[in-house]
């Protein structure tokens, strides 16, 4: 077996338990990078990832390790995202591996995501190697955490390495356990080629770069491959492995390998993640089981501030989608905002990140509309409408009932915050299901909650009310009938469709008031008074007024001022260009963002 010396694994952990730091140490120990070359968290190479201290994209790297048995091993390490929004990326990664290193914080113990990740790994038949991290912290209780892993998760943890990724303690032992405990890849290099596409990105020189895990067969540069789902065929121009931040060419990929393929693929949608790559002249009979199609949970409209940027936005979204299959988009038009795209996201963090990347990496000025989940509207004529845009809400007289998506939310918390959490979930329309003691001081609370209450800022609120101790995981469980209404915003008597939202009837008043207040603070004064109204079914529930300004004139301008005043006027003009006109009202981008964060 060619793959005998290969170990394909990922690292899973609850957010902040030190996954990326451990990945860095492993890179360092295996000599891929010298300590001097190490930039903290090498695998998080997007600016946003480093700034926010989170991993968004799965990243791959191939390492060589000489184990204590004297043999040389090849490690393919795939880093995975930690935030609950990005669980989808995790499952893709798991499918490419035989094992997972489970990092558990020695002070915090098992958290909600630890559980979720481990169960996912076990579902994928991975060998899970627990590791206790941060043992150098004063609050570390490694023995207790070991016991917790055994009791709560049911994994043997007595010989789990005790490490500190930050201080570089115990890394060697982790590497040894990877060799000993994670099985080598199975697979036949002489069988027809079967390689799973687990990620991809667009390179402007090479075309689409596909990340693959080869399960069976052999792939060489120059081969003609077929993508089994799309049926498209391409000639492979380059194959190789991953080095941190770069690619290393290798003319052959064999069963067990993790690597990349470039085949001058121009159309990004032809190489979708989850597809199987096979050889055109000797195809596999069956594709590998793909992924469950990603479920976008949060939708919003994304519009260019300058209508001329529409094509550029389409292009940018296309490129991002290649890197991020969980991003969905399709064209839509808004009366207020013109041409744009309805986009689907995994969650609000995902939305924010995409928005930030569009702005930063593609230099686009954007307006995003109020996020929404998908509602099921049952009409009196028996039809059901899947509604992801509040604007398309049918006439109230045609609606029989509305259902909203609900999730099962698992919250793990120290006992003393149970009261706070009950209060919070109550505010967010949660229904208590269950509470289990994991140990004397910690509980696992389960709630059924409307998704639209979870997506906004539930996670932030949960963290702040539990001093950061509680952890959250959730999964969609279905739909529940609910008393929902459409809340509309009128500016100067004209409806702004981009600001319409669907809310629970009990919360509509408070939300309408808040929105009107926020808008009042962000809409600049005009030469006339601007009424801001929040309405439900034509009934005004809140009103604010942006007072007219009485003058806009530089009183003085002499020789020494001209240059400076001109710059000021230019800046103002630039600012005005970035505003959107609604009738005669100019609304800055911030107004749209501010209504997303009503609880701040």
């Amino acid at each position, binding site marked *: 077996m060619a793959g005998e010396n290969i170990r394909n694994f990922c690292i899973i952990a609850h957010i902040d338990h030190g996954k990326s730091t451990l990945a860095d140490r492993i890179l360092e120990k295996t000599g891929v990078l010298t300590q001097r070359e190490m930039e903290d968290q090498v695998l998080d190479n997007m600016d946003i990832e480093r700034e926010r201290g989170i991993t968004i994209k799965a990243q791959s790297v191939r390492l060589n390790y000489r184990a204590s048995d004297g043999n040389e091993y090849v490690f393919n390490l795939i880093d995975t995202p930690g935030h609950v929004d990005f669980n989808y990326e995790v499952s893709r990664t798991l499918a490419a591996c035989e094992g997972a290193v489970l990092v558990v914080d020695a002070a915090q113990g098992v958290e909600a995501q630890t559980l979720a990740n481990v169960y996912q790994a076990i579902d994928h038949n991975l060998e899970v190697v627990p590791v206790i991290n941060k043992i150098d912290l004063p609050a570390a209780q490694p023995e207790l955490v070991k016991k917790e892993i055994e009791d709560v998760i049911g994994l043997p943890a007595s010989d789990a390495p005790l490490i500190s990724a930050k201080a570089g303690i115990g890394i060697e032992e982790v590497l040894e356990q990877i060799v000993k405990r994670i099985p080598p890849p199975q697979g036949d290099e002489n069988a027809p080629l079967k390689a799973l596409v687990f990620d991809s990105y667009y390179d402007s020189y090479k075309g689409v770069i596909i990340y693959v895990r080869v399960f069976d067969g052999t792939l060489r540069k120059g081969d003609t491959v077929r993508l089994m789902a799309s049926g498209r065929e391409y000639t492979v121009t380059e194959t190789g492995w991953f080095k941190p931040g770069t690619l290393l060419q290798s003319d052959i990929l064999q069963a067990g390998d993790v690597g990349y393929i470039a085949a001058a693929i121009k159309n990004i949608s032809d190489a979708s993640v989850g597809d199987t790559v096979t050889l055109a002249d000797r195809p596999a009979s069956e594709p590998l089981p793909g992924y469950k199609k990603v479920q976008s949970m949060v939708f919003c409209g994304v519009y260019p501030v300058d209508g001329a940027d529409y094509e550029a936005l389409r292009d940018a979204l296309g490129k991002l989608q290649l890197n991020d299959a969980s991003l969905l988009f399709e064209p839509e038009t808004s009366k207020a905002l013109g041409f744009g795209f309805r986009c689907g996201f995994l969650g609000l963090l995902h939305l924010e990140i995409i928005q930030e990347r569009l702005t930063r990496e593609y230099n686009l000025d954007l307006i995003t509309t109020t996020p929404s989940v998908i509602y099921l509207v049952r009409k009196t004529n028996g039809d059901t409408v899947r509604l992801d845009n509040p604007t398309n809400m049918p006439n109230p007289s045609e609606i029989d009932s509305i259902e909203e998506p609900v999730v099962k939310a698992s919250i793990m918390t120290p006992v003393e915050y149970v009261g706070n959490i009950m209060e919070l979930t109550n505010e967010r329309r949660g229904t208590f299901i269950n509470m289990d003691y994991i140990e004397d001081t910690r509980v696992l609370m389960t709630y059924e909650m409307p998704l639209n209450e979870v997506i906004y800022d539930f996670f932030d609120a949960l963290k702040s009310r539990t001093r950061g101790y509680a952890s959250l995981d959730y999964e969609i469980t279905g739909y529940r009938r609910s008393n929902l209404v459409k809340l509309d915003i009128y500016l100067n008597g004209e409806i702004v469709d981009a600001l319409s939202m669907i809310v629970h009837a009990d919360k509509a008043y408070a939300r309408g008031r808040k929105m009107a207040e926020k808008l009042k603070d962000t809409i600049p004064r005009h*030469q006339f008074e601007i009424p801001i109204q929040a309405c439900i079914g034509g009934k005004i529930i809140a009103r604010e007024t942006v007072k007219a*300004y*009485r*003058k*806009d*004139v*530089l*009183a*003085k*301008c*002499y*020789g*020494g001022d*001209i*240059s400076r005043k*001109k710059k000021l*006027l*230019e800046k*103002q*003009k630039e600012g*005005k260009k970035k505003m959107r006109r609604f009738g005669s009202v100019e609304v800055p981008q911030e107004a749209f963002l501010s209504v997303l964060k009503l609880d701040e």
Partner: protein
Amino acid sequence: MIMDCGLYFHIPFCIKKCIYCDFLSFPRSSGYTCREEEYFTALSNEWRERSALVTDGVDTVYIGGGTPSSVSPRRIYDILNDVRGRAALRENAEITVEVNPGTVSEEHFRIYKEAGVNRISIGIQSTQERLLRSLGRIHTYKDCEAAVRMARNAGISNISCDLIFGIPSVCEEPAQTYEELKEDIERLILLGVRHISAYSIIVEEGTPLYELYKCGRAFDADPDTERRMYYYIRKRLVKEGIQRYEISNYAYPGHESRHNMKYWECRPYLGIGLGAASYYPGSNDDYIRETNTRDPDEYMSGRYRGETEVISAEEQKREFMMLGFRKMSGPSPEMYKERFGTDCSDDFKDEIRRLKDKGLVYKKDGSMRLTLKGCDFANEVFREFVL
């Protein structure tokens, strides 16, 4: 090559900074006043360097600040002597000195007169003692009256007064009232000055007033009242025959500030001194705008120049319109045609149409000018002409 040059000299000294002041000026407390000698030497040296640009006479000189009257009037005398020594100062040149009523004596005006000064601009700002105090002015209204009298006695009758309106509430002192402003205007009319600059207060970043706003110790006067004041000033002064000729400037016909008109008509001028700006023809059709350094140490060590911009003909056209609209007569189509060889109504057809549609400008006697609404929202007019 500068024809009919305007000269500006900047005197960056004063007794005390007023709370709204963002001019480049050093109060006594700053310690820079002891370097007065050094500054005037640098000023003279810069003028010597610059004077080569003046080829065809100087027809306006404006000595501003700061407070030019806070230094010995001999300094002013020397500057004007220096001007005559290196350029042809026209017989009928307009020569203005700015003064603070709290810093002048009979002697000042006598020497100014001797130096050839024929126009005095007095920073009165308000005739109400309480408002003078809250603005941080060092003088009383009595001082203002005395200054006007002294200037006249010395033989300088072309007097301008600066007024500020819309004075905010500052540290518990209530904002200026409409009645107070009315009294200011009556008093200025009574003083018989030829020219009035009435500015709505501007809260500039970096001033003490700005800081007071930020910490909630200063508040705007009511915006409606502020506008009523502006309308009143115009109505009342026009009734006296004192015409508004620029957004904030009023004069009896023939007493408009010739020097300031140069700024609004984009005619050439040289600015000598700390932070001063010059504007004059360069090569081809370009114009040069130079702004001197704002760093006193740099200036006094002879490194005068700060920023230099080359203004293309296209940009000159836009500036001509932008600044021209400050004048009540609007940008002059004749001057435009003479300078650029095209018609401004063709070059800016779209801009003018948009502004007309918004009711901000209208056509009268062959030129476009601000409507009354345009005077309130002039920045919207100006913004049409910047990129």
